[in-house]
C-alpha cells in the first residue's frame, strides 16, 4: 500500500482555493481518505457518494459502517445524477472525471495529501472549513496532536533504540515519511534513514538482519489474504533474530490523516510492553 501513499503524498502544494461559497449540504467524495475524515466530521446523511474503496475491508477500517451509502468508481456519470453541492477529490484522483465534472458546472475541491505530521492537522482543518464542520475538525486535530504528543512524552529520557519500520515486499521506510517522524517522536533511531534511505526502499533480508535492529515495526494488514508481498514479513529468520517485533494493527500507508492517532497510541502501547 506504500505505493499509494507515495503517489498521493508527493505533491505538497495546495491547489484548493478558499471560496466564500455557502456551506455545501450534499457531499460527494472520490477519495477513500477524504471519505474516512468526512465520516468523522459530518452527519452521514450528507454523504451522497463515497469511493468504492471505502467499502472494501482490505483498504478501509470503516467498510462495515458505510454500507448503504452509494459508491462511485471515480466516474463522472456516477456523480452527476446525485446532484452534489460539492465534489471532493485528492490530488491525483480521477483527473479525467474531475475535469469533466468541472466542465459540467459542478463545484470540485481538490485536497492536498499530507507528507508530514504538520500537514495532517492542516488538511483536517481545511476539510472542516470546506464542509462547515470547523469545531469537529478542531477537536479531531487536538485529539490527534495529543495522541502524538503522548508518544513523545512516554519515551522521553530513554536511551535511543534502533529500529526498522518493515513493510510488505521487504520495504523499509526511510526519512521524509510520516513513519520516520513517528519513530523519532517515539525515541527510535531509524536505521533505514541512517543508511541514507529516503522514502520507501526494499532492503535485502540478510542486510536487515546484519544491521541488528533492536526493534522491528510491522504493520498487520490485508485481512489474512495471501500474497508473496506479505510473506516477507513472515520469514522464520525474523522470528529467530532476537529483536523485538512490534506489530501494529493500523497502518499509515493508506490514509495517514485518519489513522495517525491510532498508530501513535498503538506504537506507544507496544513499545511500553
Amino acid at each position: 500500500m506504500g505505493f499509494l501513499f507515495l503517489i498521493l503524498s508527493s505533491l505538497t502544494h495546495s491547489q484548493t482555493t478558499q471560496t466564500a461559497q455557502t456551506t455545501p449540504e450534499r457531499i460527494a467524495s472520490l477519495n477513500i481518505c477524504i471519505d474516512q475524515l468526512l465520516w468523522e466530521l459530518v452527519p452521514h446523511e450528507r454523504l451522497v457518494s463515497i469511493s468504492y474503496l471505502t467499502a472494501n475491508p482490505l483498504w478501509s477500517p470503516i467498510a462495515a459502517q458505510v454500507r448503504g451509502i452509494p459508491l462511485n468508481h471515480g466516474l463522472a456519470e456516477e456523480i452527476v445524477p446525485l446532484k452534489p453541492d460539492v465534489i471532493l477529490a485528492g490530488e491525483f484522483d480521477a483527473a479525467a472525471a474531475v475535469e469533466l465534472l468541472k466542465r459540467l458546472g459542478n463545484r470540485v475541491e481538490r485536497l492536498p495529501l499530507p507528507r508530514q505530521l504538520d500537514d495532517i492537522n492542516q488538511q483536517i482543518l481545511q476539510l472542516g472549513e470546506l464542509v462547515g464542520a470547523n469545531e469537529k475538525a478542531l477537536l479531531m486535530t487536538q485529539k490527534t496532536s495529543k495522541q502524538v504528543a503522548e508518544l513523545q512524552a512516554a519515551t522521553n529520557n530513554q536511551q535511543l533504540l534502533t529500529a526498522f519500520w518493515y513493510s510488505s515486499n521487504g520495504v523499509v521506510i526511510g526519512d521524509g515519511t510520516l513513519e520516520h517522524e513517528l519513530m523519532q517522536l517515539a525515541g527510535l533511531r531509524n536505521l533505514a534513514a541512517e543508511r541514507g534511505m529516503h522514502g520507501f526502499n526494499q532492503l535485502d533480508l540478510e542486510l536487515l538482519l546484519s544491521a541488528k535492529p533492536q526493534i522491528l515495526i510491522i504493520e498487520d494488514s490485508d485481512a489474512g489474504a495471501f500474497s508473496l508481498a506479505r510473506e516477507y514479513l513472515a520469514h522464520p529468520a525474523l522470528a529467530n533474530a532476537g529483536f523485538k517485533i512490534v506489530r501494529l494493527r493500523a497502518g499509515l500507508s493508506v490514509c495517514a490523516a485518519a489513522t495517525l492517532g491510532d498508530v501513535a497510541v498503538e506504537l506507544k502501547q507496544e513499545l511500553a510492553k
Partner: protein
Amino acid sequence: MQTKISFPQVVIVLSVAIIATAALSLNSGAADIPVLQSLKDIWHGEQSLGATIVGQIRIPRVLLALIVGATLGMAGAAMQGLLRNPLADPGVLGVTSGAAFGAVCILYFGVAATAWYWLPAAAIIGALLSLVLVYLLAGLHSSMLALILAGVAMSAITGALIAVALNFAPSLYAMQEIVFWLMGSLANRHWDHVSIALPLALIGWLLMLSRSRFLDALSLGEESTRSLGFNNHRERGILLFGIAMGVGACVAVSGSIGFIGLIVPHLLRPFVGYRPGRLMFASALGGALLLILADILVRQFDAARELKLGVVTSLLGGPFFLLLILKTRSRWA
C-alpha cells in the same frame, strides 16, 4: 558425437560440480558473514547472526535450487523420452504454468491455510491436467509441429488463467506477483517451502526413475515395448503422474522456471549413450547444477530487486530452443 566418458564418470563429475556450486551459493548473498563459522554455530546450536542467515535463508535456498533444478531436468528428460521428441520440456509445453495456476488458485483464495497438502495437491493436479492435454493433443501424432503448437496454446491458456485468477484475488499485491508465478524465483524462500516440495518431488523422482527401462525400450518404438512385455498404458500413466508430481510440488514453491528441462537433457544425451533411462538421472544432476548456478547469477545484480530466476533460464534457454528448431528443421511436419 562420440565420447569416451562413461556414465559413472558423468555422475561423479556432475556431483562434484554440484557440491562446489552449492558451497559457492552458500557464500553468495548480500550480507558479509563467515560461512564456515556460521555452519559451526549451527552445528553447536548457537544463535549467532551468521547461523540465522546461513541456516534460515541460504541453506533452504540452495536446497530448493537443487530440488527444483533436479526435478525440472529429470522431467524434461522423461518428457523427451516419452514423447520421443527433443523439443519437449515442462516449461515450453505449459506444464509448469499449469502447476502455477493450480498453486495460485489455492494460495490466493485462502484454501492453502486450511491444510498443508492443498497447495502441492492443486499444483500437481494443474500440472497433470496440462500435461495430459498436451499429450493427448500432440502425442497422438508424432509431429513436432503439433507438439509445439499444442504447447504454445497450453502455455498461453494457463498463463492467462493465472492472470485472471490473480486479478480476482482478494489481495492488494496479487497483480504484481504475476511475475513470480510466470518467471519463478527462490528469493525469500525458507524451510517450510523445502518441506512442501521435497517429499513429493522425491516420490516424483522415484516414479520417473522406475520407468527407466520402459523409456529405453520406447526409444526403439512402441512395437518393441509391447513385444518386450510392457503394458504401454500403465507405464505411460505412471510416467505422466511422476512428471506431474515432481513439477507440481516444485512449482508450488518456486513459480514456473522454464527451459531447464530443455537444455540439460540435450547437453547430457551424448554422455549417457543416448539411453533415455540413464538420461533422466544425469539430467536431474545437470538440472540441479544449472539452477544453482543461475540462482548465484541472479544474486550478483542489485540485491534488493533481484532478477527473477526464470528470466535467466529463459535468456539461456530461448536461444538454445531456436538452435534446436533450426537443427531439427528437416524432421518437421
